[in-house]
């Protein structure tokens, strides 16, 4: 039998609230399972790392037919609909007592998840290191692959 994977390597490429949760939940859970974890934040995933931004990420109703309350694209595109969908989703999350993204981020950093911000997309989007939370590192594809190549489960969101 192959040896158990000891590492979890995640790519977080999207900056909507629903796309931000799985990397944060799985990486913190990996720590609890005595695994190492790393997340490579690239493209819009960098928004998760922006200071004070994690709890402001939105849920987008457009092109999202799986919203619990179905919203037609034409309606979803109206001003205010993203805020409304986000507000509803936040309400449901609070009711289910799901940890906030900021809490999970703190747990991940404190617990030693390697938080790798993608240098290339930071440059593309004009994001400075000072704009990102503390406790992260900046790196590129090789940084992530070097970690992931050593017996890791690899996931992308």
């Amino acid at each position, binding site marked *: 039998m192959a040896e158990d994977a000891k590492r979890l390597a995640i790519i977080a490429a999207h900056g909507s609230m629903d796309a931000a949760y799985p990397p944060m939940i799985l990486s*913190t*859970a990996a720590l609890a*399972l005595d695994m190492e974890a790393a997340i490579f934040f690239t493209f819009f995933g960098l928004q998760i790392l922006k200071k004070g931004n994690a709890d402001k990420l939105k849920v987008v109703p457009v092109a999202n037919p799986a919203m619990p309350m179905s919203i037609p694209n034409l309606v979803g595109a109206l001003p205010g609909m993203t805020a409304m969908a986000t507000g509803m989703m936040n309400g449901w999350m609070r009711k289910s*007592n*799901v*940890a906030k993204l900021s809490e999970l981020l703190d*747990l991940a950093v404190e617990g030693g998840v390697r938080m790798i911000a993608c240098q290339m997309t930071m440059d593309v989007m004009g994001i400075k290191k000072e704009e990102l939370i503390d406790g992260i590192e900046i790196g590129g594809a090789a940084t992530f692959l070097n970690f992931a190549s050593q017996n890791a489960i690899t996931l992308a969101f």
Partner: protein
Amino acid sequence: MSVTPDETLDCSGLACPMPILKTKKAIDALQVGQVLKMIATDPGSSSDMNAWTQKTGHELLESQQDGGKFIFFIKKTK
């Protein structure tokens, strides 16, 4: 079977992944051989505690369900 826990952790009301994160922390604080009683209300916790003990090697001595509560007795093995 009755197990006397050395420590009790109440994760009632908490959603995934908090029960396993808190369980891990609580187990880390125990001595080898001691038993943690963990209480959760998240229905996913039954499957998760089985998986967590399997992966970490700690021993799930007993799990009970009492109404909406899921109660686990976990022995620290290492």
